[in-house]
């Protein structure tokens, strides 16, 4: 017997350790669920971590109202399958209540508006730990994230003053009103995620696989043709075989030309691609530190 495990099993073990640590150190944790593969993976790992007991965390979905319908269908099926409890926070409510103002123009997105709804839901639900599917390889500000990431009473992140994390000792102590963001899959890369989902045969939303769809092309990025994306002059929708590499809100999720029909095809595609997955995310392209700026205010 050779006593070693492969990198996917080691990452799995690390994530399960973090998830159990969250259950032990916090009163009322919640999984931030977007319907993307990372939050699907995190939920799946949570099911593993507490088996045969139920996942001791609720799911929270911050709904911009600009969804791919497939995402919602998948979400509801997953919740049913594992007997999870789902809470939905609606960005529309924040707009109607006058708390946030909708962006204008053709590139308008509700992405940035999610922060208000997210923080409000965390406060309303008295959640003291919010589990996110962020990964360090995704984006340069996320490369500096801790597993247990402290947020002050305004939900803000202070990247220059983070708690050191050593060995497997995680410090989740906090003052009243503060909370933690926890990132159990910090050390996974995009390729790791796909290899693992393939190996474990985890069902995924159809959006991730190649399908025919009406799209528009804007600034070199393909976007799904949708009522939520007003067309600029001269833009015309056309049929293309595409898939999503990340799934967010319709307005900021680029789709890619792809013929990958199975998870194995996707693993192949990712292994040879020369573009990062967030290369199609217009929300990151707004400035050099767009992600850091949003995260400091309490974004995912």
């Amino acid at each position, binding site marked *: 017997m050779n*006593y*070693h*495990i*492969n*990198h*996917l*099993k*080691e*990452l*799995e*073990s*690390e994530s399960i*350790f973090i998830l*159990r*640590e969250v*259950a*032990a150190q916090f009163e009322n944790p919640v999984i931030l669920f977007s319907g993307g593969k990372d939050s699907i993976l995190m939920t799946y790992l949570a*099911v*593993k*971590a*507490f*088996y*045969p*007991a*139920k996942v001791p965390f609720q799911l929270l979905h911050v709904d911009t109202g600009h969804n791919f319908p497939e995402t919602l269908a998948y979400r509801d099926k997953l919740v049913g399958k594992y007997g999870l409890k789902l809470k939905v926070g609606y960005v529309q409510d924040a707009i109607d209540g006058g708390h946030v103002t909708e962006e204008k123009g053709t590139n308008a997105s509700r992405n940035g508006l999610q922060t208000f709804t997210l923080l409000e839901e965390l406060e309303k639900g008295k959640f003291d730990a919010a589990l996110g599917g962020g990964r*360090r*390889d995704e*984006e*340069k*500000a*996320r*490369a*500096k994230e801790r597993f247990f990431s402290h947020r002050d009473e305004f939900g803000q992140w202070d*990247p*220059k003053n983070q*708690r*050191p994390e*050593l*060995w*497997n*000792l995680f*410090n989740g*102590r*906090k*003052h009243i009103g503060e909370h933690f963001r926890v990132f159990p899959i*910090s*050390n996974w*890369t995009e390729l*790791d995620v796909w290899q693992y989902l*393939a*190996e474990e045969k985890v069902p995924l939303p159809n959006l991730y696989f190649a399908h025919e769809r009406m799209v528009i092309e804007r600034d070199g990025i393909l976007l799904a043709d949708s009522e939520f994306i007003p067309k600029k002059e001269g833009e015309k929708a056309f049929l293309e075989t595409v898939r999503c590499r990340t799934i967010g809100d319709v307005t900021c999720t680029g789709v890619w030309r792809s013929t990958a029909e199975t998870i*194995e095809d996707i*693993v192949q595609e990712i292994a040879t691609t*020369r*573009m*990062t997955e967030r*290369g199609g995310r217009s929300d990151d392209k707004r400035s*050099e*530190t767009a992600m*850091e700026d949003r995260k400091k205010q309490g974004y995912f």
Partner: protein
Amino acid sequence: MSNHSSTELLRFTTAGSVDDGKSTLIGRLLYDSKSIFQDQYEQIEAVSEKRGEEEVNLALLTDGLKAEREQGITIDVAYRYFSTPKRKFIIADTPGHIQYTRNMVTGASTANVALLLIDARNGVIEQTKRHAIIASLLQIPHVVVCINKMDLVDFKQEAFDKIHDEFEAFATKLDVKDVSFIPVSALKGDNIVDRSINMSWYEGPTLMYYLENVHISSDHNFIDCRFPVQHVIRPYNDKFHDYRGYSGRIAGGIFKKGDEVVILPSGFSTRVSKIDSFDGEMQEAFPPQSITLLLEDDFDISRGDMLVRVNNQPTISQDLEVMLCWFDHSKPLQSRGKYMIKHTSQEARCLVKEIRYKLDINSLHRDQENLEIKSNDIARVVIRTTKPLFYDKYRENRITGSVILVDEGSNNTVAAGMII
């Protein structure tokens, strides 16, 4: 498809400043293993140009925060990832300046390999020694010394030999088990991924070959069985009515079904009736697996308890001596100060009874006169805890031999300690 099923995970740490070529080296590893994406490259290319830099600045890949980019320095641990068909690598890239000792210690705590860079023109300098001492204190199992910028010393063997001997002379004072030396030029690519055609006198491996092949499967302790209980699993449903599982990550040794185990602190013994996981029952489990143990007898066991073997038990004590690295900028370590202490899944309060000496991490000198321990200082201290901890020496087990201290007022992690 399953060609990644045997890919191992290796974590390594690098430390250094702007000029020693560390960013170039990391950049080259990422670039040559095709881990830099086109849009990432275009982005840093554009930023470099905007700043008026002549070449594409690969350091921008690792410096993620606004302040770091503005000041051109790394102030935090940055994690980078790349993989080859053999291994997946996690780099903990840390700043090498003395004021960032805490970051180096953090990066070193989980590393299998420490990568030390030496500029062939300068030889062993203070920063090299500091990093080597941290690698030794944190017991990083393997150290690889890359003697860089060989192109600037005409690829001469004498330059390599001199630094090799200089480092070895210094390393005899340290507790490092496995040291290798590789002459490289990160800029030109010599001995990074491809063998150098300029240094035929060197017969050892390239850096990439070393990283892909260094033997890491015995970096865990497989001898002393240690299972800190992290969480108790009670499903409370009809199907698993009497299920009572103790979940956690194995910190040492190999646990098998049927093994007799002792529960600490109660001292009761029983047998492992089942090793469980979502993927089914297992016959044995070892570090670093996260599993759930079921026992033959019902005892009151909770988080913080530890399962061990009858004839191989850790030290059970309220007193411990540790090498402490102090992190807190706002105040120095208080002799007679009280803190929270975290050790495996245990938590207690503790008192710092005595500061024995402060360690100069440039010279290893033990200072018994000036005992003011400020941020980034390392000191040997005596600690007493409010309840017994079940610990091993850090040398023997990095998991059961490590602690952190937390300030009860600010809740910040103020120190990390290695048990002696």
